[in-house]
């Protein structure tokens, strides 16, 4: 009974957060300097009819709350987020393509970061105070402290001759779909190495430190002493008791950070001009393409909410004590 309460509350919280994000998103762009309302429709080289349809669709000449209702209606039911100033294409489809590229690269980068982080964190905890501990903690802190763009630029400096360092050759934006030939895939793969490695180097530090403190915490618990008293060998105690409990904070952190990584990948995508959502945000900023910016912000916020919800579910699944 109590456990289902927890899930319902989390779903409710997620929905509320999405609603708040949409509202902030709406208000933010209405607070533009100058006649903000027309900004939205003044797509620089849009034809008069296009401008008319936009005004009608989004009720740009209506009072604010009426606009808000229309904005919600368009967003929720038609998935229409207006027209990009850059190329008059609907924002939604533009962003969808770019999101696929981002997810591809981010997935590889994060996976690498998690592997490095968990391994170094675990070893650091296991050989606490030893050389391995100092080495992995200090390398974690150093990479965690260096700005992402700086790591990217260093990698370009070092590997420019060996690996491609700029966006995909033929701007293939459909990363997953499309019967891409083997060479196409190889090309994407090659291009992805440096950005993914940069992302991994930026992120693994946090995982190392969290895994280390989670492991040290569990290694100090009484039930580890009980397991040792039962005569179990160290290896088995670490795996079936210490690691099992350390998974709680680790799993939640990984899920939580996934949400922010999508946003954090912006810097990596800019340095390597990777055609993802981050690059789209960068160009939208440069050209003051508000609809695009608004759409990207919404998608990134939704991804954070989504991964937060996953983190809650993970925690709920792993910890039988959740009844609050």
């Amino acid at each position, binding site marked *: 009974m109590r456990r289902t309460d927890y899930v319902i509350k989390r779903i409710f919280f997620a929905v509320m*957060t999405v609603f*708040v*994000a949409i509202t*902030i998103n709406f208000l*933010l*762009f209405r*607070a533009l*300097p100058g006649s903000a309302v027309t900004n939205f429709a003044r797509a620089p080289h849009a034809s008069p009819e296009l401008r008319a349809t936009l005004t009608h669709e989004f009720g740009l000449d209506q009072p604010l709350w009426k606009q808000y209702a229309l904005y919600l209606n368009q967003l929720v039911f038609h998935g229409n987020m207006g027209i990009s100033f850059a190329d008059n294409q609907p924002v939604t489809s533009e962003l969808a393509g770019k999101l696929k590229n981002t997810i591809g690269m981010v997935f590889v980068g994060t996976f690498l970061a998690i592997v490095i982080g968990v391994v170094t964190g675990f070893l650091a905890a*296991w*050989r*606490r105070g*030893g050389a391995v501990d100092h080495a992995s903690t200090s390398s974690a*802190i*150093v990479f*965690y*402290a*260096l*700005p*992402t*763009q*700086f790591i990217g*630029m*260093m990698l*370009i*400096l070092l590997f*420019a001759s060996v690996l491609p*360092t700029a966006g995909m050759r033929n701007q293939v934006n459909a990363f997953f779909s499309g019967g891409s030939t083997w060479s196409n895939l190889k090309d994407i793969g090659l291009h992805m190495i440096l950005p993914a490695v940069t992302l991994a180097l930026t992120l693994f530090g946090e995982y190392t430190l969290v895994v280390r403190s989670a492991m*040290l*915490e569990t*290694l*100090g*618990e*009484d039930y*580890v*002493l009980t397991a*040792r008293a039962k005569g179990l060998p*160290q290896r088995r*105690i*670490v795996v079936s008791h*210490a690691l099992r409990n350390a998974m709680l904070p680790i799993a939640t952190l990984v899920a939580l950070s996934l*949400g*922010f990584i*999508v*946003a*954090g990948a*912006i*810097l990596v995508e*800019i340095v390597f001009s990777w055609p993802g959502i981050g690059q789209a*945000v960068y160009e939208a*900023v*440069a050209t*003051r393409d508000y609809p695009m*910016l*608004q759409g*990207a*912000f919404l998608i990134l*916020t939704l991804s*954070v*909410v989504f991964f*937060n919800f996953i983190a809650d579910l993970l925690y709920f699944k792993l910890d039988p004590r959740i009844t609050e």
Partner: protein
Amino acid sequence: MKTVEPAVVEGTALEARPSRGGHPIVRVFRERPSAVLGLSLVLFFVLVAIFGPALAPYSWTQPSGAVFAPPSAQHLLGTDGSGVDVLSEMMYGGRTSLIVGFAAALVAMIVGGGIGLLAGYSGGATDVGLMRVTDYFLVIPDLVLMIVIATVFGPSLSHVILVIGLLLWTTTARIVRAQVKSIRERVYVRRARSLGASHRRIVFQHILPQVAPLLIATTVLTIAYAIFDESALAFLGVGVPGVSWGTMLEHAFERTAMTEGAWWAFVPPGLAIGLVVIGCYLMGQAIEDALNPRLRVAHLSIRTWRIRKAPAATTHLDPEPDREEAV
């Protein structure tokens, strides 16, 4: 009723007991070398930021040499993509980055600390309400929101500081709230309340002195994040107007210094940011560890207890002679 023995297991958790009096922060710097290393790193760059502009050999905006000139006697760190002396830029740039970092951290401390204290101490509806707001702020991706706000309201020093500060206060608020909530339940606070002490007195006499060191630790960590965010904003072109380490990186990237092999145009600012962030991190971590040495004695680690090699004197006067030989 709980009559559990005091937690000190004979001989194992002795180090958990604070050894000497004196202010906890001072004690941290006396006992932990990592805190001193962190402090010296940060102090070095603060001094550079204060005296830098006066000592800078060249102008930090006007070119004073060839483009991407390698480090030489005249230009110790060479020149950047538009011929400006990198060392002078570094000296002046440091001031902007640190100002943004410290100011934003201050904003985060005041807003986050205030909300954390209020929510933690009052509990009930206020606590739930404030924490809901914090949860919403936490969910919004800070970098993206910063970009949007900076774009919408235009970049300016105060804007950037406010934006970064207002997005970093959530972590401070949550940490402070948790600590205040646990202190409020402590027996000596309940005793003060049962004495009839006023809320104001309890907060200023008992709660604040106890939470202050943790607030300092969290603020120092926030400085690191703030400098980080400033460099990200600068890289996206919506950072602080004028020169900062972040703009130097962005400038070097625009001029593709990496492919030109001109490492001196972007390595100094990148390393500087890294070192300051490491310094803040070490200090903050040291203070936080000193406050709650929650890392218990690990029951399990690669090293195990040892058998004493040298034969110890027997402590037992044995009547039966044969037992003597067996030992």
